[in-house]
């Protein structure tokens, strides 16, 4: 379970998170929605320690995320980055097996490669891509490789940062379905940030809307359309009229 307790974060004069309170129950898929620049990625990165909150606490299974053995903590997580964030200098299989080739989860090279190829298969890629470099792949394939890397070490918690950005609608659908299947299959706790409502409906058990640095609304995905919350309603409908200021 992941708990945000009154988390604040500013960048210079810009107050991005102004007291975020949110609970992501174990084994559930939480999707955080919100406009661009509302701090969704910041919230995610705060959990992983990539950004340090100015105030507030983030608990993972009741323990402060900033305390304890960092390697053991991070070994529980997998993350799919918005642009894939694949390492250019490594081949596809070396990217997928990155964690299995070094550190506490190190395996023999042949075994790591085998696991990488199996994970690539799981995300719909054939073994012949294993020895290619990321620059030789299309955007959709890079996302799949990123997904394979995120799940390679069987993490308990998986984060997805804008998983469908830059993809065509069909590829977006494929990635959404894959994410849903993998999360259910692995029984993992998932946190996804997106502003793609198709992704929300495909991936989420629960939805939280971040606006003005706080969680404006949270609830099951089924209640999202009839929430009565003006911010959420405007966001779902994509209307320029409403409490969320739209700059034309």
């Amino acid at each position, binding site marked *: 379970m992941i708990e945000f307790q009154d988390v604040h974060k500013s960048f210079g004069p810009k107050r991005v998170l102004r007291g975020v309170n949110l609970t992501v129950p174990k084994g559930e898929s939480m999707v955080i929605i919100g406009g661009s620049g509302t701090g969704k990625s910041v919230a995610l990165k705060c959990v*992983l320690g990539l950004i340090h909150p100015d105030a507030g606490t983030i608990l993972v299974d009741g323990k402060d995320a900033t305390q304890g053995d960092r390697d053991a903590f991070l070994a529980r997580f997998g993350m799919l980055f918005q642009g894939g964030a694949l*390492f250019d200098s490594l081949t596809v299989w070396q990217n997928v097996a990155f964690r299995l080739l070094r550190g506490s989860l190190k395996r023999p090279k042949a075994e790591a490669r085998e696991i990488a190829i199996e994970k690539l298969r799981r995300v719909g890629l054939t073994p012949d891509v294993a020895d290619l470099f990321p620059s030789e792949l299309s955007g959709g394939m890079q996302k799949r490789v990123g997904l394979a890397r995120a799940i390679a070490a069987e993490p308990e918690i998986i984060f997805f940062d804008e998983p469908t950005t830059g993809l065509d609608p069909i590829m977006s659908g494929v990635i959404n379905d894959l994410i849903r299947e993998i999360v259910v299959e692995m029984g993992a706790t998932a946190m996804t940030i997106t502003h793609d409502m198709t992704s929300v409906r495909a991936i989420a058990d629960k939805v939280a809307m971040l606006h003005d640095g706080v969680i404006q609304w949270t609830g099951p995905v089924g209640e999202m359309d009839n929430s009565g919350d003006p911010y959420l309603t405007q966001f779902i409908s994509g209307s320029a009229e409403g409490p969320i200021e739209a700059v034309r």
Partner: protein
Amino acid sequence: MILTAPLAALGRQTMAFMALIGRVAIFAFQGLTHIFRPPFYGREFLVALLNIGWLSLPVVGLTAFFTGGALALQIYDGGARFSAEAVVPQIVAIGMVRELGPVLVGLMIAARVTSSIAAEIATMKVTEQIDALTTLSTHPMKYLTAPRLLAALIVVPLLVGIGDIIGIFGGFIVGIQQLGFNPATYIVNTVNFLQFTDILSSLVKGMVFGGIAATMGCYFGMNSGRGAQGVGAATKGSVQAAAVLILAANFMLTSLFFAS
């Protein structure tokens, strides 16, 4: 108010500059400590050795060769004004080994290696690859900085040594082909004139310049701004800082070795 504003601006700039020096010093210290603490990334170290050392050989060799040749011509011409043409081998040797070899190799490394390290790491930062490293339980300082820094500390002194030899060789070729020196005499004069301190200072300078070049590349890369502009600014800043620091360090090391 109008009178104090320029002073305040100067103060702010000075404070910012001092803070930058402090941050770079802490970064360099952390980079050095990570060299000695496991885990060690052998593959990254070997790749860095190849990139910084082996692939820099052509540019270092050509630079040293032409500089050695030009130096021989200049010394011959200048020496002729007071009938001291015969000192060409000695002055080429001392000039290359003590100053030109290390400085030119250092500047070439700053141009070729610092820029490449900064651009690569900055691009990794912009595309979230550095964040990805962290989430994959890999410390970016350990994985990116330590192998490059160690490789530079080892291989740049070697490059300087090779540059010194090629520079002297450039002077030798010009000396015997164009200036009429006897080859055997030229070599004997060169070898007899050089002292251990000359060679030691050259190699120490190489190590310090290598450390500066790698540290600047990694620091500016890791602290790059966003987008293509951020990568460009990081690359430019790293080369500028490395070049200036190399020249400043050269002055200090020369003072240390030879001022007495």
